[in-house]
């Protein structure tokens, strides 16, 4: 079996909420293979988003280990973790978080340039990413000139531009109608199959989760079950 790109081992994550300690993740272990699309489902407050934050090194577990390509995030320096966040991990949220004053191309270029990539190289990478997500040209339109689905494509391009191969998508279809949502999740599935991108997709919609290779069901911070897509031949 391929080594996992993401490994969660015996994760516990607690938060303090006033006088109470809330357990968001309770003893969770999960391996994610490179190029796998894993949907995470469960009722509100079951720990779905916390799991994404742990995968992206935005939060640290209270106990247990998160490994990316076999390297424990807990053993990384602050600088190494922020480098991992910038170079390997992309985020897609329900709210698009595109900068309205920048064009689609500039929105995708920005994080690359902030990471030290030259403008010319960032432009090339951003343009390639926008082509990959099939954003119709021209790419110099501003977000308010694009439909909701097209804006989400820009957000996905921003998440995969450069060498980023892990995408953490938190309800990326939340603001879209069903048909646009289907097309966005189909695009994510294609990125996994064709580009080898690994995606963790949080959603509460079964129809969108059904694009995934594997669906993980969480309840009270634990995995209660998993379902795998049937193997198709041909």
């Amino acid at each position, binding site marked *: 079996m391929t080594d996992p790109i993401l490994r969660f081992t015996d994760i516990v994550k607690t938060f303090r909420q006033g006088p109470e300690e809330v357990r968001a993740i309770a003893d969770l272990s999960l391996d994610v293979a490179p190029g796998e699309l894993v949907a995470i489902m469960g009722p509100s407050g079951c720990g779905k988003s916390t799991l994404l934050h742990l995968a992206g090194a935005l939060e640290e577990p209270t106990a247990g280990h998160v490994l990316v390509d076999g390297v424990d995030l807990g053993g990384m320096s602050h600088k190494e973790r922020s480098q991992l966040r910038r170079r390997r991990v992309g985020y897609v949220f329900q709210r698009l978080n595109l900068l309205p004053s920048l064009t689609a191309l500039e929105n995708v270029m920005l994080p690359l340039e902030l990471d030290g990539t030259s403008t010319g190289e960032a432009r090339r990478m951003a343009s390639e990413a926008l082509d990959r997500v099939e954003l119709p040209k021209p790419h110099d339109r501003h977000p308010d000139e694009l439909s909701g689905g097209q804006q989400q494509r820009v957000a996905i391009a921003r998440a995969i531009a450069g060498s980023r191969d892990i995408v953490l998508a938190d309800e990326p279809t939340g603001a879209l109608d069903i048909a646009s949502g289907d097309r966005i999740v189909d695009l994510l599935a294609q990125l996994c199959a064709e580009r080898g991108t690994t995606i963790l997709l949080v959603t509460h919609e079964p129809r969108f989760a059904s694009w995934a290779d594997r669906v993980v069901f969480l309840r009270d911070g634990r995995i209660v*079950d998993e379902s795998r*897509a049937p193997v*198709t031949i041909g």
Partner: protein
Amino acid sequence: MSVRDGLLALLHRGPRHGYQLKSEFEAATGKVWPLNVGQVYTTLDRLERDGLVVMAERDGGQKEFSLTADGREALGRWWDAQAADAPPPRDELLLKVLVAIEVDPARAVDVITSQRTALFERLQGFRRATRTNGDLAASLVAEALIARAEADLRWLDSCEDRLRAEGAT
């Protein structure tokens, strides 16, 4: 829909012979309902007996069937009839979960969880069918199965929420 209703509907497009009706029936129903040609001819014989179709023999001895006025009327009634199963919906999933809740509420959550996983695996399979099959009827069949699986999954979620709210777990 019965085979009879389906054949009447296909004959609305004009005269057809038996094998042609078999092929068109299967294509129109997204290949979810294979027919053998004997079944088609038996049904056509009954429709002819009931005065809903007429048979004409073409050159070469091929039998061709057409709708009669009564046949058109029967087809009109079928289009207008309500397409729904009569309540109560006695499907296996609903009854299994209801009985589990009644007999052993603590066990019922496990039953719901395993049924949800099984439904999801089917949903993932339907989803792949919509992607690989370009045929309109077949992809609409897959869409219908997706919509029904979604509805069943929502119902299972409601069952679990209700059970948990009532402290059955």
